[in-house]
């Protein structure tokens, strides 16, 4: 763990037996940032984001990951960085599986990413190395049998002000960036 007053970096092992220590360390770090610390609902969402990034690290990265927290004047930035499996998604409209860099999709394209069984999230392609996850429309599940059983990225998006994925092609690194604006 490395930290100064404004930045905290946590190393996330490949397997985590307990999330609690990581969540509490992150909460302690932001405890002096009043807009978050005094907002019970947003603090709850902050904890959910940390937990989902930890789960994402264990489930998908298959490598040591790092969570970085940075406190700005009116925002908190959370990044999960790793050199593990690259993020991929399937374009729901075409069925094509896309990996990074996104050479086959033009910037500013908005599409529905299929991320699992009935698990979809709209994304905006910013450039070949960056996508933004978009706020999902409110959904009512008419048929429980057709419901997804994965929700991780959707939960992160709904908790935060913005949520991006960055691919660093030079270093082969993934970064999920979550921003809470106040």
């Amino acid at each position, binding site marked *: 763990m490395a930290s100064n007053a404004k930045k905290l970096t946590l190393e996330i092992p490949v397997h*985590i*037996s*307990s*999330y*609690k220590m990581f*969540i509490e360390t992150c909460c302690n770090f932001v405890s002096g940032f009043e807009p978050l610390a005094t907002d*019970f*609902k947003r603090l*709850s*969402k902050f*904890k*959910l984001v940390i*937990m*989902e990034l*930890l*789960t994402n690290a*264990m*489930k998908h990265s298959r490598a040591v990951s790092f969570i970085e927290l940075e406190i700005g004047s009116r925002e908190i930035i959370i990044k999960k960085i790793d050199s593990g499996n690259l993020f991929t998604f399937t374009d729901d409209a075409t069925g094509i599986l896309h990996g990074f860099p996104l050479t086959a999709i033009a910037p500013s394209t908005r599409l529905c990413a299929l991320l699992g069984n009935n698990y979809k999230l709209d994304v905006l392609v910013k450039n070949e190395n960056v996508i933004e996850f978009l706020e999902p429309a*409110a*959904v*009512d*599940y008419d048929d*429980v*049998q057709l*419901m*997804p*059983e*994965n*929700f*991780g990225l*959707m*939960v992160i998006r*709904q*908790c935060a002000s913005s949520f991006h994925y960055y691919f660093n092609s030079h270093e082969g690194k993934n970064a999920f960036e979550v921003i809470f604006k106040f």
Partner: protein
Amino acid sequence: MNYSKEVIDGTVYVTINLSEASLNQSEDFKKFLYDIDEVHPPKIILDLGKIEYMDSSFIGALVGGLKNVLSKGGEMALININSDVMSLFELTRLDKVFKICDNKEDALQQLN
């Protein structure tokens, strides 16, 4: 034991003895739910009162369990959900899908 169960008034009452319910337990828990066969059709109350932190993979296991119960003509209710965990249900809109009750008595009434 991470999970314990007993039959009360024709309903299987399950206590989840976990403070963290996450990816580490989700597959085991889903199997545990699938294997409940004490009551036909299944009527299950899940007590989540000990869970401090829950992630989306565990909630996915709950959805899988619900699908299984409903496919057999059964019912499932959740009780004693803390506020952080409730946030997760609200964000995923699963608070509209699951029967969520304050306590065991309310849940028994809902299922019977």
